[in-house]
């Protein structure tokens, strides 16, 4: 037990002083190697073998596809269509932003891209209409997480890979929680802004005019709307694997960006390619170091020891599941979603399966929990990114953030944890799994 304690201390200390997360994982591994007297020669070969999977190749490709669609102008067309539909109530632009995030999430594999794409399109418009900065920035930070809860999702690809479960089933498990969050975010947004007199509301069109405007916008947005259809239709229609869908969506985004929306130039294409490879690289080196660490954790029986620790407090599965969620919330406060999912999956999955939670349901639990982790300080990458894009200091964002955590995130998390059907009905329906 003392080995694990020291390993955890090493992890947290290195994280806190700002050592890059892959090296923090690595520091923790070294502590286990030294204290446990392991011969480390097998660790890197093990990590390499685990990471040599075709499924993981989807990561650079989905990042690239998301980047190309963001720069190519697809995000903007999507926002415009949604705006015609729900933009005309007090606080309506907030709902537009949330729904746009969900739709963009069906193209993009990452929440980060969703925050930066939809945020940079929507926030200036909202400010012009008199929306409060802190509120809008907090809202986009939470809504950006939809980028990873609505498939495709890099986070879920990594979860499925580390947990040895199906990528497609994990994708589907987070859809209902994602949609629930869309609804709750929109409602909370409307409630918080209901008395705000500074917001100007665009004139209400009559039904016919709305239909006309919608038609016009929808036609220009068609190539953008087709993108999620290609990706999700392709994977669930049996034409391609997730990795192939990622590659095909790149191939689709290139001509659309260059010739239809004309948002792409060669320079932009080159930059996007470079940035995507860069991002994929920093994720994959983390995967490599976490594989090394989790292999050592398995040899040290960490899941069993953690389970014993939880069971000592209570043997009631409901209480244990609550404690697991608290554990993940704490991890989510320390690191970003991808690092956290890589760390938590190998340790916690064996525990929850003992409690009768299937790996597919756990995809929803861990997705919602660590998705929320993206906006819980101190380590809250989405909150900071949104604050930077929206020009809002973190303290102005706190009120809305807490409202969203207590009235949207936590209820959804509890549903995902204690009502299996909540997340499982869709994978059951589409994939016929038990």
């Amino acid at each position: 037990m003392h080995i694990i304690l020291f390993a955890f201390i090493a992890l947290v200390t290195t994280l806190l002083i700002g050592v890059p997360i892959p090296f923090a994982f690595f520091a923790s591994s070294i502590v286990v190697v030294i204290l446990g007297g392991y011969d480390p020669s097998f660790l890197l070969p093990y990590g390499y073998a685990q990471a040599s999977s075709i499924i993981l190749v989807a990561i650079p490709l989905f990042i690239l596809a998301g980047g190309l669609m963001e720069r190519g102008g697809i995000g903007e067309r999507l926002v415009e269509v949604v705006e015609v539909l729900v933009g005309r109530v007090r606080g309506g632009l907030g709902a537009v932003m949330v729904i746009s995030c969900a739709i963009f999430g069906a193209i993009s594999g990452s929440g980060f891209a969703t925050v930066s794409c939809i945020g940079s399109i929507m926030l200036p418009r909202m400010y012009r209409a008199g929306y409060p900065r802190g509120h809008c920035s907090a809202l986009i930070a939470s809504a950006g997480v939809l980028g990873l809860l609505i498939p495709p999702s890099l986070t879920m690809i990594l979860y499925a890979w580390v947990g040895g479960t199906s990528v497609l089933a994990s994708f589907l498990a987070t859809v209902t929680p994602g949609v629930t969050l869309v609804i709750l975010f929109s409602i909370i947004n409307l409630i918080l802004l209901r008395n705000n007199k500074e917001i100007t509301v665009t004139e209400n069109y009559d039904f016919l005019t709305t239909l006309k405007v919608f038609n016009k916008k929808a036609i220009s947005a068609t190539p953008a709307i087709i993108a999620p259809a290609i990706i999700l239709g392709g994977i669930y229609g049996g034409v391609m694997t997730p990795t192939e869908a990622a590659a095909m969506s790149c191939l689709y985004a290139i001509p659309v960006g260059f010739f239809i929306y004309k948002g792409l130039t060669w320079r932009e294409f080159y930059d996007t390619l470079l940035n995507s490879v860069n991002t994929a690289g920093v994720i994959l080196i983390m995967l490599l170091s976490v594989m090394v660490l989790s292999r050592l954790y398995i040899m040290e029986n960490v899941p069993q020891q953690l389970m014993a620790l939880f069971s000592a407090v209570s043997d009631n599965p409901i209480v244990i599941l609550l404690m697991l969620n608290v554990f993940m919330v704490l991890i989510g406060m320390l690191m970003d979603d991808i690092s956290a999912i890589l760390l938590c999956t190998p340790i916690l999955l064996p525990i929850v399966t003992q409690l009768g939670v299937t790996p597919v349901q756990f995809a929803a639990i861990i997705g919602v929990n660590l998705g929320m982790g993206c906006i819980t300080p101190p380590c809250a990458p989405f909150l900071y990114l949104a604050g930077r894009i929206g020009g809002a200091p973190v303290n102005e964002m706190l009120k809305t953030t807490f409202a969203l955590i207590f009235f949207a995130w936590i209820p959804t998390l509890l549903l995902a944890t204690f009502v299996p059907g909540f997340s499982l009905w869709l994978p059951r329906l589409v994939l016929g799994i038990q």
Partner: protein
Amino acid sequence: GGSSGDNGGQAASDEPMVLRLATDHPVDHMATRSANAIAEEVEEKTNGRIKINIYPASQLGGYDTVYEEIVRGTIDMAHITIPDSLDSRLGAAYTPYLTTGYEEAKVVYAPGSFLSEKFVEYNEALGVKFLGFYLEGYIGMSAKKEPRDLLVPGANKGLQMRVWAAPAAREPMADLGYTPVTVPYAEAPTAIQTGVVDGWIGGTPNVNYHWVGEIIDYFWRTYMHAESTAYVMNQKLFDSLSAEDQQIILDAFERQSKESFELAEAEDEHWMEQLEELGVTVVKLSDDEVQMLADFVRTTTWPKLESVYTSELLDGLKAQYE
């Protein structure tokens, strides 16, 4: 913890030597029962001098890396499919139609058989002690729809089939008229469910039941590949043991190896019945049909495998049929 490979052989008399046994098999698989039996037998007969910790379900990694770790000595023992990455001849245990049924398998994979002797030799060259084959049953073929002309070798079957990435799986399937597609094992069920592929080869009836049972509509027992996994151990560690302990270990593994030959058929039958209960149509090819397919694969596919397995090994295997 601590790598037992480092202090092997000099364990103090009161401290038990703890060995790690890694397996590829789920906890409720017959192989795990065997692993438990081995651990019990070894601990009892050595009076607690040697204790075996079992890491089932590929907890320590897939068979490729586990085998490499046996070579290094960072894992002590394993029950795995021996990979062909270090020596291509080690893929030969999965030669298609090397055997055509349980009775033949009992002979071909038995301790002391031509193949076993060769495996002892090849493994020893890599620093691995080969402790015997373990017959888990026969890998079947399963799919959501029926192939065209199942019994006409070479005719286009109109089926895209997931195969594992090895010539022993891909070549015979291509020769028979299927389109082999490589999909990772973890994605096989969803690939079949969504229709990326129509079916797959790669699992015994047991694996089919647990992994794709709800998805497939047909299962064919073709006897093409015996699921012939193996017991292996780090050679240096083995050599460091006293002659008495070596014998105890050899006996324990051989007992389970031999027992697997007796259990495999019943195991397959049991899970084929379970598949039928799920509504899967289980097709058991007749002896003549199996023989016909085997003859085709042996004449058409085997020459292509010669460069991989070497003619020395393949000729030796052929000699068993002549």
